[in-house]
């Protein structure tokens, strides 16, 4: 090809439709007088036509700008924002404080539960039924606190801590496993014999 660079640019500008006025007249004169220039124009037009056909056949669903926007949005969504160092330290301190509070609460809960579970164990194996006298008049001596503690029933019922009646005989009866709807715990009957003064 012997076309000069200037003529080639002139032909390309003509094919692209960028020329007007004198430049357009000069380009048309060149194409009319120069076979190589006219041949180049034809080839460039064919090439442009080919690109348009291919572009039409492979038309994308989205504008490339929209695709780029979608990609950037997806990246922002997937990547967790990283806070500043001060914010991360603050969050770490808050997390440590909460963990500590929860640990204290759990410890307290286990402590209280441990206390009550001992009582529940006692309830699971309640004190055997006290052998009761046939008649209420059969009484025993005032039980000591140790005896009372030994006879103590389940924790959710009634426990006798101490009983004193200087002038009367006292008996303590545990009535286990009440069948009432509201409670199945043991109850206590303290029987203080009327009229039988202690010797």
């Amino acid at each position, binding site marked *: 090809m012997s076309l000069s660079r200037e003529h080639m640019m002139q032909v390309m500008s003509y094919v692209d439709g960028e020329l007007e006025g004198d430049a357009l007249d000069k380009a048309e004169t060149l194409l009319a007088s120069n076979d190589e220039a006219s041949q180049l124009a034809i080839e460039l037009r064919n090439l442009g036509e080919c690109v348009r056909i291919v572009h039409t056949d492979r038309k994308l669903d989205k504008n490339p700008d929209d695709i780029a926007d979608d990609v950037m949005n997806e990246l922002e969504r997937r990547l*967790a*924002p990283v*806070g500043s160092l001060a*914010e991360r330290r603050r*969050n770490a301190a*808050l*997390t440590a*404080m*909460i963990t500590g*509070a*929860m640990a*204290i*609460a759990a410890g*307290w*809960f286990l402590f*209280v539960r441990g*206390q*009550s579970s001992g*009582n529940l164990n006692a309830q699971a194996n309640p004190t055997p039924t006290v052998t*009761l*006298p046939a*008649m*209420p008049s059969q009484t025993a001596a005032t039980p000591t606190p140790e005896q009372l503690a030994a006879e103590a029933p389940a*924790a*959710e*019922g*009634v*426990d*006798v*801590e*101490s*009983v*004193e*009646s*200087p*002038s*009367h005989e006292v*008996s303590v*009866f545990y*009535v286990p496993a*009440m*069948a*009432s*709807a*509201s*409670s199945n*715990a043991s*109850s*206590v*009957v*303290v*029987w*203080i*014999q*009327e*009229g039988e003064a202690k010797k």
Partner: protein
Amino acid sequence: MKAERRRFLSCALAMMSMAALGAGFDSKIAWAAGDPNAEVMELQGTQESGPGSIDPRIGTLPQLKKPPLSAYNTYKLIDKKSQPAKVGVPSSYPLANGRTLQVTLLEQTPDKRYRVLTTISEANAKDYLKKLEVIAGPNEPFFVAGQNVDVKNADKGALILGITIRP
């Protein structure tokens, strides 16, 4: 946004922890919200012919059908009284036999029961019951029996006291 949610969740957890701690603390704090009542039932127990009966006003007290209270097959309600039980403040209940019952709430135990002091005194006589200290669960009655309705006449039946601390 994510950091804000995390902060909100952390605050919620912290509040829950504090609430759990508060619930576990001394129950006296919660107890101060309202004093319980000390309810005293005076029952007359007699042995009647036949199966006997239990005054329906007494309510459900299965203890009456178990020894030693089953020594009587008939129970009638003489009186039923209820007074606010303040810690350390005795509540007096005059009894049908002329004696006086005093019920004092001493404290609430860690397992939510009540430590109760009971005395029965008689004018110009030694205390019938100088001291009875029990730990009773809420709404769980304990009984003081053996007295006569008429101190000088046992034929009028036995006086059974049912004492219940009701929150």
